[in-house]
């Protein structure tokens, strides 16, 4: 019996380690290129010697820290807007019975099927019309929209699991709708809010296509993903080591946030997807 147990544990660990290796390989590759000396392309063998030169070049020759700060600020503000937007919208969709509820919810889901990346000309026009070009505010709003529409399915699923009885009991006790939302629903939905927060952070921090279209002026005003892309200066002239070094430092804040909030994040996602 004991041997069988041990064998089973062995198999489990073997599978897990295998997957861990598969997951980590590309990151090892990124690190090899970032630390490697004299790397020509992305596909060329393991470098012979290693250096920290690319990291110091990144900090001295480019606006790297500024880009990171820009992205960080955009991401934090996006989180704020998205959390408010999602909580009031989901409250309405989940707690209120109204005409057109189902259709509206479906429409919001379906509209995301349209690949926005292909409609950049139209997006640019709307940005120009609103005077949002080259301004962080524009990116914040549009990232928040992308995040909220994307998360509304999970968020509604979660809200639906909070029993209506609690609301009704509170109502009988004379609590106003606002009080119920603020004091009962939202605290119960805290894990869901954490997902919305972290997922919108990830979206805003990594967003590239939109930002590159609407942020046209000033290297120091670029968000991180766009700034990094400026190192790809052509088919032949790209400095991959610098690019990968940037990717490594750039992802650090996200990993830190992710790991420190992991507890809430995972707890939240899970329950959100359970339908009653």
């Amino acid at each position, binding site marked *: 019996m004991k041997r069988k147990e041990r064998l089973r544990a062995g198999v489990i660990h073997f599978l897990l380690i295998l997957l861990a290796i598969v997951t980590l*390989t*590309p990151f090892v590759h990124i690190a090899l290129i970032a630390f490697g000396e004299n790397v020509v392309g992305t*596909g060329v063998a393991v470098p012979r010697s290693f250096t920290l030169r690319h990291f110091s070049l990144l900090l001295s020759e480019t606006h790297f820290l500024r880009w990171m700060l820009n992205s960080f600020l955009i991401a934090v503000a996006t989180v704020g807007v998205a959390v408010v937007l999602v909580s009031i919208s989901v409250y309405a969709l989940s707690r*209120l019975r109204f005409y057109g509820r189902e259709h509206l919810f479906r429409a*919001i889901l379906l509209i995301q099927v349209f*690949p926005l990346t292909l409609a950049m000309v139209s997006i640019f026009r709307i940005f120009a019309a609103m005077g949002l070009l080259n301004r962080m505010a524009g990116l914040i709003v549009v990232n928040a929209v*992308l995040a909220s529409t994307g998360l509304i399915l999970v968020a509604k699923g979660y809200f639906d699991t909070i029993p209506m009885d609690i609301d009704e009991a509170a109502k009988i006790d004379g609590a106003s*709708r606002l009080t119920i939302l603020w004091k009962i629903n939202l605290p119960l939905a805290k894990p869901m809010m954490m997902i919305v927060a972290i997922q919108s952070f990830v979206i805003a921090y990594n967003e590239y296509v939109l930002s590159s279209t609407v942020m046209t002026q000033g290297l120091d005003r670029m968000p991180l993903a766009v700034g990094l892309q400026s190192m790809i200066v052509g088919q032949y002239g790209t400095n991959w080591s610098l690019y990968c070094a940037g990717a490594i430092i750039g992802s650090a804040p996200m990993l830190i946030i992710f790991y420190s909030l992991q507890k809430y994040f*995972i707890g939240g996602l*899970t329950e959100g997807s359970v339908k009653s």
Partner: protein
Amino acid sequence: MIDTNKVWTLSLSVFLACIAFLWLPSVAFASEPVRVWFSHIEAENETLRAIAREFTSETGIPVEIISRRSVFDAPADLVNNAELSDRPDVIFMQAPDIGGLVASGYLLPLKIGQDLRGRFAEVAFTAFSYQGNVYGIGYSVDTSGLVYNKALIAPSDLPKTWEDFFETACALTKTNAEKKVIQYGARLNPKDMWFNYPIIREYGGYYYGTLPNGSYNAYDIGLDCQSMLGYVERMKCAMNENLTISNPNHTESHISHDFACGKVAMILYGLWNAQIYQNMGVDYGIAPLPRHRDGSVSRPLSTVQGFVINRFSLQPEAAWAFLNYMSRDENQQRLIESGNRGPQKTGERNPANIAVMSSTYIQSDEILSSLCQIGKQSEPFPNIPEGPIWYNYTPTAFRTIFFGDQKEREVDPEQHLCMLADRIRADVAAMNERADPLLLPDWLWVWVLCAFSGGVGLWLFIRRKRPRSRYRERPSKKETLLAWLLLTPLILLVAFFYLYPIGHNVYLSLTDYSGINLRDYRVVGLTNYRYLFTAQIAGLVSLTLWTIGFAVSVIGLSFLLATLFATLLERIRFSLSRVYRVIFILPWVIPAVITLLMWQGLLETEGGLVNQLLGAFGLPAVPWLSHPIWARVSVVLVMTWFSFPYFMVIVQGLLKTIPQSFYDVARIEGANAYRVFTGITLPWVFRAMLPMLIMGLVMQFNQFGVYLLTQGGPAGDTLGAPGATDLLITYVFNTAFNTKRYALAASYSVIIFLFVGGLALGTMILRKAATRA
């Protein structure tokens, strides 16, 4: 009643805040400066700013220098910004990009005086000439030459003619006892068209032919002429002499890598990796190319970068004055020096100004002066909008000619060159086609509109009749009002950032908007849709089937893997599972663009890390991205790698919701772990995740990541047919974008949106019906 009031006030203020946030006034300049979009090199921008200050103090015209991300974005950004209030006046861009801009009327023709013309190399103006007018002034010439390793070949021994080049290269190629090449005389890429272009010229091939008036004739393709067969023969000969890459998947970066390792005497390349050659201890030089048979100079292709003026500039005279000011010899000198990072002399900027060329800064450096010499005599890449069409086909076509077709059979070069030229001509024709508008009569529109609204009305009427028993209570008017009010911010934002783009896209799909008609496009009705439904998309059925197969495999596999590994994680100690979870989550948080590029490198057949690992276990190398079937497998696996972490996190929580009683019953019945997994865990998780899975599936139809990984390849033998890993959306967009038919692309996106959206809606309704039943 206070409660509702409060909520009202809250939602109203949220709404107003949103509006206020969106319409914050933008900062305006006191007096409008001349705006110059310049470089991604900040040192260069600073120099131009200093020059601008001097200009302002002399003339009183304010100038603003705007640092830019990359010169590649300049054309698209100019189109977007050309008529805005802070429009750029002077723009730094690449000469090959001007064709479409001139055709659409975005650039101002310049009157180049004798003095200016005399102070720059001819190429600075020819590159920016379009149909008899000059639209810009060249600043830097990006080109290639004969890069050689001084340790292997002395400068005096460099070949004088192309014949000499191949002979010298042969003589310098050394093999060891096992017939393995240890030193290459030269290394060429037979698939390439850019660096080998001078050799193609030597044998009589050419790029677009020219009309008597000097402008290009896009229908004259210099590839299917008899003399090109001489080139093919010469290259095949070079292949046998080990003067080319032997792996059909290798590219210039492999050649450059070999050169950096000191194994190659001569390559046709630029100085993009010069820093690395230096670090690796290679004493390199760059020389002009060998001469042609008739003694004339071989001219490599070049990309000239320079300055153009926005046609919609509000102050074209001031812009022109500043352009002249910065084109002064002493200012060009300052700019070029800072662009080459001063004493570092990186070679990033290769001057077009003659005084700068002969300055001590350039002349004291053997490499820079040689590069100047080459640049001066280079052939600027055709700047007509049709220019880049070639590169969509030449790599595949030359690969087939030199390395054989998909089944590695040799092909007839003549027939294949004809096919290539025909394909290019067909695209040129498609790009310039002006189809007749297919306008529907107005009464039909009215009729359709009436029928549509009638249908909606009827539908609503029928719905009202249905009993509303499934609601606990009829929705109250008050609650409806409140709900819609609360949802207003989201609905408004969705309308701005989703509905408007979709609507605008529908509008564009009804016009003749294209890369050569970016501004004055007109409504042509359903022409694009007619094309879309009548054009034979090669292999549309198999393309659609593969797209569906791809989406289902990725989501199915992600779901299975996620459930399996989430279950496994439950069975080990918590402290350990935390570590694993931390690792498994990585693909989700790191930008996909970077990791996709990494996968591309990892999966290379020769030298890729994955095959090296397999080799370490004694397994044979797998052609991950170069064999049609393996490429499909790789694409599915890599995309699964991206999507399983998110699923796994969700499944982990779902597992906790499975009632313990289920497991107890299973245990009593003596089910083993496998039975429990397939009988209890999988169905439970599947049911709970179904809405997410449907959405995930639908999103895979728009998967552009695949394109980053494989560029849709490996390509089939027919030029222009979908590659093995092309998805429906990537393929149709490529065919439309390659020929810059943006309106056609818009109509594709509308049709695909309707198709995929309909699919999703159908599934949602079916699921709803199933759960209700």
